[in-house]
């Protein structure tokens, strides 16, 4: 394709000066629009109205652009938005100012020179650039080592700079991360917190001043305490503001043995010769902290009423909406119809893996777990699956089965009474387990997740057998917001929580507030009244007449 056009220098200049604006919204590189802007600019530049010759038609304009792009290869790249439509719908995809500048300088310096020379020059340039596409060139820049070797030495410096800039851009943390963190900080309610004293001397002083009956501190010898205050200034202040652990000295206690590894969970307090502790917090201190926390949370709540500027993942009624009350369904999870409870943003499952056989509560067979139709619970979202030891691989398998991709793993470091890592776990093959694992599986690509707020570690005390730390709820609520529907499977009474639906066989009763769910649940229960329903195997033994009835019942279900 050859053009007989002359070089339209004002157009080159126009492209150089406005490269960024032409490609951005609202023009977005549309040739028609660029043409219009060009005409407007030409009119503005001339004091006298432009002559007819200066006013080119749209077709001439497009030809001029094509010519420029041919003479200065790589300077302009075109794209067709909709291939069905005519040429006028072409877009300018990219403008490279560098070759345009070269072209412009070349022309302004040697205005006398012939077209042939330009043609030669452009051919030379073509060889340099090597007919590479815009994308290839960008990749070359990214691949720093390659660009070092292949790119002409004179461009070396430029590529280095570009490469650095790109790396910088790629490494820049988006503002959304910081905004999400700030928002979480501003609107998350605080919980009561009292720090613990680590001063051993305080402990030993207290040991000699408290009077313990039945493993409870019943009184203190205040006179002794004030005496110690003279020797240990700050002691009384510390006592009033921190938690202290007082050695529970008993006749059989052998101090040389050190601390009992079971501490407050020790079953043999009456005879154990190791050292145990009792917690001491002044009553007024807990009251004060409760009061302060409450006041702080009221303030946080009222501040959150201000118009929120960072709204990612929030529903429109975030502030005004009342959080859904706790809901729970007592059922055999294996026989439950998960279709009736709708879709959830987050699901927690804490199955009693068979590995826990020696623990005092019912277990769910591993295979049965794998066969639960948990794939119905979410269109997109995150599933948190507690796994223990060897179940970790089965857990990963299960997540894949349900359509999830394992994206993270959260560890719960279990601590004991003194806030130290647990060492008494009876599980573990090679090393004793002092942590539990929570697999995070993601389904789909949920845009509404607030990432980068919490860490993948929870350090907190153990409570009842297999009871998981409440910190997890906080993490999840920050991840998806307070009003997102959340489900916990295999939950127990201590797991019910506002905003959550809990299901499990150990719950007391059933409580459903969402009437649409309730209606479906009632239907499910009614259709389930037939005890044979779940034993398809029994159907073989039933006479053919009954079998028909059976099938119809199943199909209506």
């Amino acid at each position, binding site marked *: 394709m050859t053009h007989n056009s002359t070089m339209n220098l004002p157009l080159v200049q126009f492209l150089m000066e406005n490269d960024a604006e032409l490609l951005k919204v609202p023009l977005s590189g549309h040739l028609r629009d660029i043409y219009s802007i060009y005409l407007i600019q030409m009119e503005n530049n001339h004091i006298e109205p432009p002559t007819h010759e200066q006013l080119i038609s749209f077709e001439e304009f497009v030809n001029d652009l094509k010519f420029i792009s041919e003479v200065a290869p790589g300077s302009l790249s075109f794209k067709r938005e909709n291939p069905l439509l005519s040429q006028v719908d072409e877009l300018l995809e990219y403008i490279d100012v560098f070759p345009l500048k070269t072209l412009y300088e070349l022309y302004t310096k040697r205005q006398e020179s012939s077209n042939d020379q330009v043609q030669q020059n452009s051919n030379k340039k073509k060889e340099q650039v090597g007919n590479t596409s815009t994308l290839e060139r960008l990749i070359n820049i990214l691949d720093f080592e390659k660009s070092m070797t292949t790119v002409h030495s004179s461009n070396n410096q430029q590529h280095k700079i570009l490469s650095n800039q790109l790396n910088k851009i790629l490494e820049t943390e988006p503002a959304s991360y910081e905004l999400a963190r700030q928002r979480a900080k501003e609107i998350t309610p605080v919980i009561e917190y009292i720090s613990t004293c680590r001063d051993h001397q305080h402990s030993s002083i207290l040991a000699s001043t408290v009077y313990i009956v039945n493993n409870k501190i019943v009184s203190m010898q205040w006179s002794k305490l004030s005496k110690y205050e003279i020797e240990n200034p700050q002691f009384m202040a510390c006592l009033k503001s921190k938690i202290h652990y007082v050695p529970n000295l008993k006749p059989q206690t052998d101090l040389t043995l050190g601390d009992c590894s079971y501490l407050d969970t020790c079953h043999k307090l009456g005879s154990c010769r190791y050292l145990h502790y009792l917690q001491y917090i002044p009553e007024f201190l807990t009251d004060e902290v409760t009061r302060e926390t409450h006041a702080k949370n009221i303030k946080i709540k009222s501040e959150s009423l201000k118009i929120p500027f960072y709204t990612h993942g929030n529903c429109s009624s975030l502030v005004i909406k009342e959080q859904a009350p706790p809901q729970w369904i007592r059922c055999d999870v294996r026989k439950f119809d998960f279709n009736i409870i709708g879709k959830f943003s987050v699901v927690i499952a804490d199955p009693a893996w068979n590995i826990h056989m020696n623990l005092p509560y019912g277990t769910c067979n591993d295979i*049965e777990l794998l066969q639960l139709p948990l794939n119905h619970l979410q269109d997109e979202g995150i599933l948190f699956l507690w796994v223990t030891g060897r179940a970790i691989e089965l857990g990963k398998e299960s997540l894949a089965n349900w359509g999830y991709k394992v994206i993270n793993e959260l560890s719960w470091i279990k601590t004991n009474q003194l806030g130290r*890592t647990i060492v008494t776990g009876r599980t573990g093959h090679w090393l004793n387990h002092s942590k539990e694992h929570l697999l995070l599986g993601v389904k789909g690509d949920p845009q509404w997740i607030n990432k980068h707020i919490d860490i993948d570690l929870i350090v907190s005390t153990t409570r009842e057998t297999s009871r998981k730390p409440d910190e997890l709820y906080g993490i999840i609520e920050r991840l998806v917001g307070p009003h997102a529907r959340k489900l916990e499977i295999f939950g127990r009474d201590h797991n019910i929580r506002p905003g959550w639906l809990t299901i499990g066989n150990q719950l007391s009763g059933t*409580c459903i507030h969402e009437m649409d769910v309730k209606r479906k649940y009632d239907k499910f229960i009614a259709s389930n009244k037939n005890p044979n329903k779940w034993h398809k195997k029994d159907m073989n033994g039933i006479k053919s007449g009954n079998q028909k009835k059976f099938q119809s019942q199943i199909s209506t279900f």
Partner: protein
Amino acid sequence: MANTSFQTDVNDVPDDQTTGQLIDSICNTCQLLHNNQPKRINSKLIFKLVHSFRFLNYNVLPAENKKLLSLNNIDIFTPILNLPDDSIPEKFDIIAILFAYCSIRSELHPLIINSLDSLINHLRDSYDSTNGIVNSDIFGMYTIVSYVEQFDEISPQLLQFLQLNLRDTLIHQWIPLWQNYKDSIPLQLSNFEQNSNEITSLLMNNSKLDFFIATSIDNLFNKQEQNGEKSSYIIYQITKRVILLNHWIPKDIYQIATDIIISHEVTSASTSTSLPTVSSSQSSSKPIKHDLLFNLQIIMELIDHPELNYLEEPRLILLLQVSLQKLSTLSVKTLHEIVNKSGSTQTLSAIFNMTQFLLTKFLVKMENITSSSSTSNLTLKKDYSIPDWFHDAIIPSIPPISKSLFIFDNDTLENESESNKLKFIVESLLNSLNSTIIINKKILSQYNSLNLNPLTLTSSSTPSTVKLLIKEKYMELYFIPSLTTLLLSDQLSTIPLGILYPKKKRSLYALFIFANTTNLLESLIKLHGNIALYHLIKFISKISATNLTLQKISIKLLNHLFFHIGSDSVKQLCLQNELTTQALHNYITIWNDGTETYKLFFEDLFELEQPKVDTNSTSLTTLLSKIPNVETIINLNQQISNITYNDDHSPIQPTPRKMSSQFSMENAMPISTNNNNIPSKYDAYSASSFIPSNKPYTPPITASTINTSTNNNNNNNNNNNNRYLFNNSMINTPPVTTNNTIPNDGGFNGLTPTHMNDNIPYVNTTNTQEGKNDNNYPYGSPFSTRGGTHPMSNTTPKTPTVSSMITTSASSNATSTFSNPWNESPGTFTSNMVGGKMVNTGKNYILGGHSRVRNNSRAQSIHIDQFENDNT
């Protein structure tokens, strides 16, 4: 129903003097008509009179007006009827509208009663000739009034545009109702309660229902003695209609009606049916909320649940219609105040545009379903799909949100038939949509009159690119819902088959929606000038290329904006800007098909001759060959259509593996026999981070393999039993202490004996958390680890003497040999087959090995493990 006229804003109530003058002139005009002076009666006067009647509503005139009552013994209808048909356009429509107004304001009832005989006489001919023909389009009086009041003025043009054709309704519905009423006392609910046919006919027929409300509503709520579920049901159903009529219902009655709907109880009726076994929230329902915030909250509920099937949410839709109607009477200032108070994450314009889009999207989808089932002719079908990106562009991505409890139904009051329910919901949806469009339009026109520009971006630090992007997004926020709404309008008017409502109503709603949407876009262009027009043309160009139905709608819209709004303001605006002109020229040139549709643009706007377009016939192959990259396009279109039909916006994700029923417990046993130790050591989960593993890889067994091996089932079942047997026996069998079974036989698979130390509870360090959790996370645990000395750190861990280890010889089970508990495939006997892989339940691991060992790391500890008995 849907709307309030703009003149009757609650903030805009005229003063007493104005009201007085208004009533005076109405009375005078009526007198004039009555006196029947043909010279002075013309269509202009009659239209003026009808228009002035809209100010007689209860917002403007809350109390009974004495002066209006003086309009006794006056007949205004006969003189109008006597006018020659050609002197007054749509004569029967204007008479019917007048009749409707007189019906719904009690002071005007004498006007009807006085004229009734004369009316019947005049209409006797048509009365007889059409008698017996059942008209499917039954309009209530309130319905007609609400229809005409959404327009600024009742004009001959409007009536021609709407084509209400109210003649039959007037003759066969309204007049007979009045005829029967004329000599009787106000209707009593008890009249209906006796006869269920009467009730059905009352509740199903809007004429009768409206007539009942207009004449006898006082009785409904005054009589508190009625009880029984039947009457409370009827009251509730009538109330549902009353709350939709807003300012044409006396204030006190309207308030009672609203209370009933929101509290969801008819106070006099006992609704407490026995509570179901599952505890329900209804008992603890929230106190009644009258405030405007509650109205907004209902709309936000809709926005927060874009996935809802509205047909299943009758209560939400009812509340939505009432709320939108209420909000449509408020000024933009009040609306802003409510939004601010709500702390919503969405702006005022976003809330209503999102509502408009969601309602329209649902209606279009529903229409697509009903029309595809009723239209068999594929060639007649037009593509009424909404481009996929519309939703994503204006509806933010949010997680599934829990429903607010106020949207739930009280079943006892909602036992309507399904078809009736659907009809009601669909009409409510259309009314809600219409109100939303009107609110959107009103916001813009009030911004305009207040000289406010919502696009004024004050922050000077905002980069111009960001500003331009914001402008584009803002425009899309309006264009996407508006164009989708126009699509719905086209759908309603061109597809006659709507199973859910009669044809007449379909075409009327199509007209309402079209008129109000074009008004909305006009206001947008008026407010924002050229930038709005430019973006509109760009938007139209973009969507036209993806969907020909949208193209058709777009050019209709452009025609309307440029040539049919009664002024050439848009045309002038367009010509002022080169960018806009070029964009429009481009669009017109591309799509010009030589028809009238494009003619005015060429001749009137660009002053060019419309290019002639030849009609050519061509074969499909030739046509396709002319398209560049045809294969890519076909592929692309397939992709697009795939996406389009994926309506639920669920992202593409890994398909969950089917869980075949054959993997039930019965046959989930491993195929690998227990006789062979080598394959049974295979552990599919060899990647465990806890159990070191270097098993030889065995290809996973596929489901088909399992099928072929079902004859092993029996055997497997036996094995299954054995497994448990074995486990039990292991617990009961006195352990045999053996030293020599441990390391010598190579059973460690390359593990050095030092690994045996693993049963020493030794924690390397606990101090790493020191100080970290104190302050950084205010919501963290108060019991975070904070170092301290580890109880074990003073003691050097002792390597247990080999003799202290107790292992079990599995001598009791003949089917398997089991040399030592430290075999790193301890699940040998419990390996199960799942999805073709083996699953190790780890049971043997616990029972056969570690747990049976005394707490040997603390030799002196007196803690007794629960398995310690085994060791004694």
